[in-house]
């Protein structure tokens, strides 16, 4: 018996890509990346987004995720790019997908891709780590010790086994400030971390603080990624969607700007 080939026409061409920024908030910060990916695909279907599909017997929607905050950490700045078979207004897609995701997984920004590579626009993260139960002075002192160190190797259990990373080397800046709660002290640690391989995560930084200064949070800290982007000389992080926003949204049928897109059949059905 011959091999089967998929019935029907080949998948429709990609005519546009949309880049989305989403947040993972509150209790849904416990969503793993795989969990998010499943929920996101279902949301795209519920929202009726005309997704471009891969070829084959079990075609899947063409979605590119850019990194992902570790499970259990919140984020205000996760990025994903989707490929569409129709040109759509970015805000319309954002609102529809957001409405189809459970509250706590919130799509907060969207642009029509105008070329370039999204991962190339990201090489650092801004993290905010809330440390309830810790005095700001203790945290600040620990940070000074950490920053003064040449290197602080820390170990973490990964899928590939025990890995050692240099937590110090990845840290661009770290500062402690106070945000005391009515019933207990609370320090906030703001850290800018360079993306290295393997990644240095907030828990690695906390391990480093414990290693160098015996700083041990009495309750689990809450880490939130506030931003991702390119690290500039002055230590600022750029918005990775900004280059797509630089010009006003394309006029209808303004195909030439959609440089890297496969297929230029865009104009035909307009």
């Amino acid at each position, binding site marked *: *018996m011959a*091999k*089967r080939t998929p*019935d*029907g026409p080949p998948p429709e061409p990609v005519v546009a890509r949309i880049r989305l920024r989403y947040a993972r908030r509150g*209790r*849904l910060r*416990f*969503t*793993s990346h*795989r*969990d*998010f990916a*499943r*929920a996101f*695909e*279902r*949301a*795209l*279907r*519920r*929202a*009726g*987004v*005309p*997704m471009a*599909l891969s070829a084959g*017997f*079990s*075609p899947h929607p063409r979605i590119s995720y850019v990194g992902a905050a570790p*499970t*259990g950490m919140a984020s205000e700045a996760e990025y994903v790019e989707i490929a569409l078979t*129709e*040109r*759509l*207004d970015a*805000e*319309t*897609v954002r*609102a*529809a997908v957001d*409405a*189809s995701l*459970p*509250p*706590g997984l919130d799509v907060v920004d969207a642009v029509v891709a105008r070329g370039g590579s999204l991962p190339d626009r990201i090489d650092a993260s801004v993290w905010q780590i809330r440390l309830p139960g810790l005095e700001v002075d203790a945290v600040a002192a620990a940070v000074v010790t950490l920053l003064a160190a040449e290197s602080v190797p820390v170990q973490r259990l990964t899928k590939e086994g025990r890995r050692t990373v240099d937590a110090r080397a990845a840290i661009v800046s770290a500062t402690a400030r106070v945000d005391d709660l009515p019933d207990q002290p609370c320090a906030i640690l703001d850290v800018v971390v360079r993306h290295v391989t393997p990644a240095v995560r907030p828990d690695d930084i906390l391990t480093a603080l414990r290693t160098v200064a015996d700083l041990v949070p009495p*309750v*689990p800290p809450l880490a939130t990624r506030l931003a991702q982007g390119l690290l500039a000389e002055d230590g600022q992080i750029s918005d990775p969607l900004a280059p797509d926003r630089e010009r006003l*949204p394309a006029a*209808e*049928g303004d195909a030439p700007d959609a440089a890297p897109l496969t297929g230029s059949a865009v104009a035909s*059905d*307009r």
Partner: protein
Amino acid sequence: MPIESLFPRLEPLLPRVQKPIQYVGGELNSTVKDWDVAGPDGTVRWALMYPDAYEVGLPNQGVMILYEVLNERPDVLAERTYSVWPDLEALMREYDVPQFTVDGHRPVGAFDVLGVSLPTELGYTNLLTALDLAGIPILAAERGDEHPIVLAGGHAAFNPEPVADFIDAAVLGDGEQAVLEISDLVGDWKQAGRPGGRAQLLLRLARAGGVYVPRFYDVDYLPDGRIRRVAPNRSGVPFRVDKRTVSGLDDWPYPKTPLVPLAETVHERMSVEIFRGCTRGCRFCQAGMITRPVRERSITGIGEMVAAGLVASGYQEVGLLSLSSADHSEIAEIATGLADRYAGTNTSLSLPSTRVDAFNVTLANEFSRNGRRSGLTFAPEGGSERIRQVINKMVTKEDLIRTVTTAYGAGWRQVKLYFMCGLPTETDADVLEIAELAMEVIRIGRQVAGTKDIRCTVSIGGFIPKPHTPFQWAPQLDHEATDARLRLLREAINSDRSLGRAIGFRYHDGRPGIVEGLLSRGDRRVGAVIRRAWEDGGRFDGWSEYFSFDRWMTAAEVALAGAGVDVDWYTTRERGEHEVLPWDHLDAGLDRRWLWADWQESLTGREVDDCRWWGCYDCGVCPSQGTQIQIGPTGRTLLPLPGLRPVLAPPAASASAPVG
């Protein structure tokens, strides 16, 4: 009394446990109502529990249906709770966090009713964990007015005697109407100021009929350990409790908005129950016996549920569920109609757990039209023709080979075959025929497929005699004999290296089956065994990594000491015609005389035909329950649905239209 969310106390524990997402709720289509949605006493609050891990419990249709049916009532709120894994259990004990619901993270102990679905007996220890974590006394007799009524349902509730000490009540059969009636009773009692307390409420439930309250029945034993009699100890409580049967499935199109979890679960699809009940009459099959008669959902009713469910969930796979889905009177029309309707939408259809001899390959092809053609499943259940007659699984070797030939010819590469071991009258020879059958399948398969690259997987389950089946009197094969027989089978399969390599063999071990057998056909004395096993650390007994046979055997030895009965007495002992069985006062509608006659006929290999097509054989269900078979064909068809191509529907608030 306002009830506060336990989430702030649970949250710090979550980074310390495996897969915390399973404890946070927030599923699409889940509901959190105000605790006092209809006033403090006007609101009836249900916690619905599935006593297994979230990944198994969430997709459970029974819980999902009742959750929605109950929450549709304005004066009722229903939330869900699942078993927590031992890592979280330890932390909850350490930090004093009680069993919580995943919807509102409310303490389970604060609800009016804790409805527990008992699909299998191996969840009993998990039930005890949940009660204990909830702060509800394990023993029903020790509960006070402030504790929820613990109400069991599900297939295992057809013999709830082993858990009779731990539950307050049980409902047999379909739950949809029962939970509404119980809500009315509980609501009236609360609004009347809870007259007579908990005892009075239970009495009201028992007297209303259709709710079994174990404490209102006394069990006496004979000197030899058998039951002398089971009788009510209160006036107005029925001698026999009837099962519930919902008629007209089209009127109950639930779940309308399926729960869609964030966590990964065992089924990533939406399910539509296409009929309930089965009258094929397989003698080992408890599900088939206790869910009679057959009630179909119509083809158009199915089409509507699929359409609405896909929109509500965003799933891309639809499973058509029932005990034997290929038997729906219009299954071919349903398959074609749905495949046409969803052609080009990347939506796939499946007939999960269709273990049917007569499963026709054309139908399977239709179902896989938009998907992969990976594996087909057949369940001959018995290895030899003789044993298949004993169990009334009417499929011949020729049927099977013919079907398999067509399947391999149509491009399928893998066939799964399900069998049971330890069936009544079975010998080594019956089981060894499985090897011959599997080898024949591979030989034929290689021929028609024209390639050596085909596989056949043989899965074996140990037979466990279940209540309310013709085999309820049968002896269970001990696990040593089961394991020995299956060792022989494995050797036979491996005796031919070429064929043996193409045959997968799946069998674990016979010991969990003995515990399941003890719990299935046990009586109230087995409750002490469950409690002891749980106190000794028994958790998640359905999971091989947690199950401990030794723990159960030790528990049984201690707890049954002096009772004159033991594990063998409950499992490998054959029962006599007139022995009072622990579940005889619980009425699944089956005429006991018919069950016995069918048991006797099985021993001589006499087969029974399906009453859907060959006429009533008086199993007793229809007259005793006032029900009847409800099947098609309706002659209706599924029309194409407009607008199935993706159309971005902007949310109501947004006025912007798609560009272009």
